[in-house]
């Protein structure tokens, strides 16, 4: 990989200042970024490590009743500390990558990367979540803008993520065993106001909501509610792991499984 300057600030404001320089990039857990650097897919002049910033770590419930996870919190910590507040999210975090990856990788890094097969985007979107940056709050609907594309500006940093806590929820991940990402993943979250269903790993435009399923499940939260639906193959990913028809079938099956397993 190309060389770069390494900085490790101890506050968000210092990190923002360092990130304002030409070709600077934030480094959170590095579990995607470091492999990308090795392949020379990125060539930052400066990497700004977020690992030394205490205000970027932690899991808590805020005064509005939302689960708030700071941006540089690792998957391993989320799996442990979110379990009593939001078991489905904790379970999702505990199945990302492998144990060593979970000890480094962070939620903010994953969301900023917005891999179309990543797990967290489905949880954030299904939980009507908010991305908090150093500048603003971004609703999940506006944040995810397609494959590897988000609403973040250059030099803008995810400082926290907020989740509405559903009454019951479940995430079903159909594992692509080599990458350990979701070949397709479905997050179902049931709130008093209705059901939200978010799909990852399936669409060429990244994570999305399945509104037809949401309407039927809000009416009757039962897997049989979905029998009348057929998911269209338009815009679904086609690769050596699965055809669009295969993914369309997975979407429906996994959504049913999530409804059955939701608690």
């Amino acid at each position, binding site marked *: 990989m190309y060389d770069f300057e390494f900085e*490790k600030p101890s506050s968000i404001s210092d990190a923002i200042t360092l990130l304002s320089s030409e070709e600077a990039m934030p480094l959170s857990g590095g579990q995607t970024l*470091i492999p990308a650097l090795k392949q020379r897919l990125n060539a930052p002049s400066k990497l700004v490590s977020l690992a030394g910033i205490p205000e970027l770590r932690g899991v808590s419930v805020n005064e509005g009743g939302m689960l708030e996870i700071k941006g540089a919190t690792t998957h391993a910590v989320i799996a442990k500390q979110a379990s009593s507040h939001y078991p489905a999210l904790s379970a999702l975090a505990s199945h990302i990558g*492998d144990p*060593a990856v979970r*000890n480094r990788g962070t939620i903010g890094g994953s969301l900023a990367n917005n891999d179309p097969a990543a797990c967290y985007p489905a949880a954030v979107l299904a939980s009507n979540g908010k991305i908090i940056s150093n500048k603003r709050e971004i609703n999940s609907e506006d944040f995810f803008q397609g494959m590897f594309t988000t609403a973040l500006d250059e030099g803008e940093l995810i400082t926290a993520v907020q989740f509405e806590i559903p009454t019951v929820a479940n995430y079903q991940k159909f594992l692509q065993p080599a990458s350990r990402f979701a070949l397709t993943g479905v997050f179902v979250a049931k709130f008093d106001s209705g059901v939200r269903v978010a799909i990852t790993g399936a669409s060429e435009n990244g994570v999305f909501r399945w509104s037809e399923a949401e309407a039927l499940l809000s009416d009757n939260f039962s897997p049989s509610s979905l029998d009348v639906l057929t998911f269209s193959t338009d815009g679904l990913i086609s690769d050596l792991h699965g055809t669009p028809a295969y993914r369309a079938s997975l979407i429906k099956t996994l959504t049913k499984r999530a409804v059955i397993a939701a608690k």
Partner: protein
Amino acid sequence: MPKVNITVNNNPATGEVEGRTLLSTFLRDIVGLTGTHIGCDTSQCGACVVHVNGDAIKACTMFALEADGATVDTIEGQANADGSLNVIQQAFQDHHALQCGFCTPGMVMSASALLKENPSPSEAEVRKYLEGNLCRCTGYHNIVKAILAASGQEVSAVAAE
């Protein structure tokens, strides 16, 4: 070049590194501890697993400068004080949990992290925990058996499967 100070197996280690120097490179080329193996260098195989501040991580996917000030434990620090094999290492030998041995340092470091977290894991839990460690020789059965044995559990049932 920036300087990095890391406590490796209870000994201070210092070196000048580039920003891009990986922890695995620092351990092998600067500290001279070549037990941390680089198999894939892409975070897949787990031969480079070490503990940083007690957590298992892949040393090929962390920069040396990220570990500045940290405590790092490698395979070289695992033996007992008198130089004899520790419980996990001895179980690997007893149960023939290695053939070529290339993956073994990472396997032992992952096993030690698992048993610290979960002192009496089930066979399924051992297999799940080893998802990030690849072995091309053993087919994993004897590795799983060795880790269960190291946790003090009866392993004959596993061998029969």
